[in-house]
């Protein structure tokens, strides 16, 4: 039993259902040839690194399948070459490490992607719309992450949190975060929570790194 994966780019200009039928046609072809389809990865519309056939984006699909022998490969490649809907394709035989990598990736064990996926799913349960905390001057993506982990998930939460609370969250995150001053964060978050974006922006202009410089001067 050999495991292969074939990645192909479908023309994005086609109507949505035709893209699906194009992808399904190749799954059918493989099944008719007696292949066992392990997984179909619908990566979806992506920007191309360089234009192909005057298109700047393409719909990526990856089919991973097992077959007893490789006779199906020339057949599917010929079909793809003849198919105008397919812009590019690449078929690759997976070694045992490749098979394991793809398994792990599906189970969310690989690196950053895994933690992101887990985090998203976890948050969805408790919270529907997560506010973008990084819009607060002084809060970067990492600090926003810290806050969310500590249970401060929305502008409202930041607005209601005391400065001491925020400071303790930061210092728990490590010494590199302890230097950040959350003094104005609740004030900014309150404006954001009320939807007063214009006022927030004018306030942010006065601030650098979340600290009010105008008062000190």
């Amino acid at each position, binding site marked *: 039993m050999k495991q292969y994966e074939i990645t192909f780019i479908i023309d994005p200009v086609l109507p949505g259902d035709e893209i699906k039928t194009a992808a399904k046609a190749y799954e059918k072809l493989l099944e008719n040839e007696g292949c066992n389809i392990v997984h179909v990865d619908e990566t979806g519309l992506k920007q191309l*690194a360089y234009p192909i056939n005057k298109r700047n984006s393409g719909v990526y699909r990856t089919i991973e399948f097992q077959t007893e022998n490789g006779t199906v490969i020339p057949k599917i490649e010929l079909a793809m070459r003849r198919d105008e809907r397919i812009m590019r394709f690449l078929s*690759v035989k997976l070694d045992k490490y490749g098979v394991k*990598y793809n398994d792990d990736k599906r189970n969310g064990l690989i690196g950053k992607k895994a933690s992101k996926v887990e985090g998203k799913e976890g948050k969805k349960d408790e919270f529907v719309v997560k506010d973008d905390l990084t819009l607060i001057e002084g809060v970067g993506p990492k600090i926003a992450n810290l806050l969310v982990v500590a249970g401060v998930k929305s502008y409202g939460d930041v607005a209601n949190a005391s400065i001491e609370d925020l400071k303790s969250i930061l210092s728990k995150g490590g010494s590199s975060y302890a230097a950040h001053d959350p003094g104005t964060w609740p004030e900014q978050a309150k404006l954001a929570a009320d939807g007063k974006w214009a006022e927030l922006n004018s306030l942010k202009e006065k601030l650098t790194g979340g600290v009010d410089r105008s008062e000190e001067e």
Partner: protein
Amino acid sequence: MASRDDIKFLSNPNIGKDKKKYCRFKKFGIRHIDYKDPDFLTQFVNEQGKLLPRRITGNSLKYQKKVAVAVKRARHLAILPYVTDLLK
């Protein structure tokens, strides 16, 4: 006047220290290089999208060859560019 303790800050103490390069694939036990992961592969190409040599990345020969194959596959699928400027 500078005391004896200050003298060490007058020149960068790290100059001349050799940081030993290592093969990250061997060190972290990465056995498979995914050609569909552009963020990972950009670590092995320069700003023009050219492959970096082993003497810079520190990869072992075995994995440098695999990196090269993965980058070439990614280029074919328009995941990485063949030629560009300001990739990073």
